[in-house]
């Protein structure tokens, strides 16, 4: 695990990885372990301040905020990961074909990519969410589509640069066909850049999701992402600020961790740095 070792040397990236690990762990099994339920309402303990019993307090329906934040992280992470996975696969495929084939195919694909790119991410998400309707699947699709251009552009520029390298020509002389060259030579050689972009895109997808949910076109109750929690807490911001502070911290932590991890991966995956070591 060469990459892991190098990542370990970058303190911020490694800490980010640990934080993300904890967040994912919490999101998956946190509520079960702690024995708290994000949906259990209790009118007697409405808007309880953080303290013993309910560490992060309770909301306007008496639900445990910690349980809801953990649940929110699960939904938010799921949406951002699925949408980025969609963008990764579709975007990389389009970009690679566009860059590798070139010519008219390239011109048409670039035109489409640029057209999608012309919309600001949130606006596009809003538009798609309106057209497709809100709900988790549609919000994933909306964020996914708006992230496709980033991967497509990156993959295209990488494919163009790799296509011109000499090892591609020598691969052709050994008799490989184009499909084999793309899967064995072009894609692996752009993977490091794509991995970095994935981590950065996951961060921005989380923000987009939160923004859309905050505006009310995202995840619908009873499901709640961090954005929904933020929105719900907004109404009580002067009375019970913990309702929005903790989801906000969760978003901040996740996004910062993803960004630092992306930066760390950029260094760890760089072939040249590997040679120098």
């Amino acid at each position, binding site marked *: 695990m060469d990459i892991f070792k190098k990542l370990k040397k970058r303190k911020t990236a490694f800490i980010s990885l640990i934080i993300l690990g904890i967040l994912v762990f919490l999101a998956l099994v946190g509520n079960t372990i702690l024995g708290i339920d994000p949906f259990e309402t209790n009118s007697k303990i409405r808007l309880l301040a953080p303290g013993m019993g309910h560490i992060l307090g309770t909301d306007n329906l008496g639900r445990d905020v910690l349980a809801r934040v953990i649940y929110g992280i699960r939904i938010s992470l799921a949406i951002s990961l699925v949408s980025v996975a969609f963008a990764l696969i579709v975007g990389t495929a389009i970009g690679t074909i566009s860059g590798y084939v070139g*010519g008219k195919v390239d011109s048409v694909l670039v035109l489409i990519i640029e057209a999608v790119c012309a919309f600001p991410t949130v606006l596009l998400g809003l538009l798609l969410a309106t057209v497709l309707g809100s709900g988790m699947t549609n919000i994933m699709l909306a964020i996914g589509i708006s992230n496709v251009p980033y991967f497509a552009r990156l993959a295209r520029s990488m494919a163009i640069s790799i296509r011109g*390298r*000499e*090892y591609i*020509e*020598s*691969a*052709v*002389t*050994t*008799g*490989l*066909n184009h499909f084999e060259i793309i899967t*064995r*030579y072009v894609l*692996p*050689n752009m993977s490091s850049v794509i991995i970095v972009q994935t981590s950065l895109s996951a961060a921005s997808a989380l923000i987009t999701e939160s923004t859309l949910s905050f505006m009310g076109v995202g995840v619908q109750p009873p499901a709640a992402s961090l954005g929904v929690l933020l929105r719900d807490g907004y109404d009580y911001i002067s009375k019970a600020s913990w309702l929005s502070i903790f989801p906000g911290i969760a978003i901040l932590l996740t996004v910062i961790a993803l960004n630092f991890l992306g930066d760390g991966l950029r260094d760890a995956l760089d*072939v040249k740095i590997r*040679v120098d070591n």
Partner: protein
Amino acid sequence: MSEQLVEVKDLKVTYYQNGVETPVVRNVSFEIKKNETLGLVGESGSGKSVTSKAIMRLIAEPPGKIANGEILFEGKNLLKMKEKQMQKVRGKDIAMIFQEPMTSLNPLYTCGSQIAEAILLHNKCSKQEAWERAVEILKMVGVPSPEKRAQSYPHELSGGMRQRVMIAIALSCNPRLLIADEPTTALDPTIQAQILKLIHDMQKEKDMSVLLITHDMGIVAENCDRVAVMYAGQILEIADVKTIFGNPAHPYTIGLLKAIPKLDEKVDRLYNIRGMVPRFNELPNGCTFGPRCDFCDKKCEEEAPQLVNMGDGHLVRCHYAGYLPERGI
């Protein structure tokens, strides 16, 4: 079947430059006999590499285009083949090694797996067998501790070692023709000699023909059986190596040979051919070498010379082939 392995007939390759179709290789005809080494020499930009890429059908379309001609490999016209058939020829019948061993290997795979990949592509065998053969070939091309080196990544090897790996990949499927496009230009002289000797030894062992592209007359003299001299996309002279060095007939060949510094002669300035290689879009009407030739006259300026047969396969593209001594050379 004749003893000809490859016959190139009237090859013309064009490239689109600013929307204009510019020929970069014209009327090129030559053949490569079985088991022989044909040297293709010329200055940078004379069309050597384009010619070799045309044989492999590696000319990117667009901007390039094989506009005319035939390339017969064991009697079959490569230019008429479908891409699928051509993929079977590449690597199996014709293999190629390049000038830049530093960048010609995929940095992400071990050397062994890259050789094994080529073997698997053209042979029916298991991965294990392919790997074993890869190690065997590495040993054959003189890589020390081949089992270990097969596990190495390209960046862990020196330039000479990488070129050996390239040769190993090229030889992995016992090709009939090896195209070596300036295989030693990026290497230092001692390694250069080793690599050329290796190619020569492999050629004898495997009964293959070699098309050696170079601009080094010394390499030509030591390694080639016959030589084709290219200039501005045309072959100016083709003959066996003794004739080229002992009895050259084209003023350009004579100039090239005069430009080689000699150990036993003291000279103030080395000889050089005046002028520059013309650009392909501003080629002269008559002889392409005319503007740089010491013997150029009105006929040369107006009429493009054809290849003249001087006997024994010695072809010269010059109006005054064979008459130059009388003109004071």
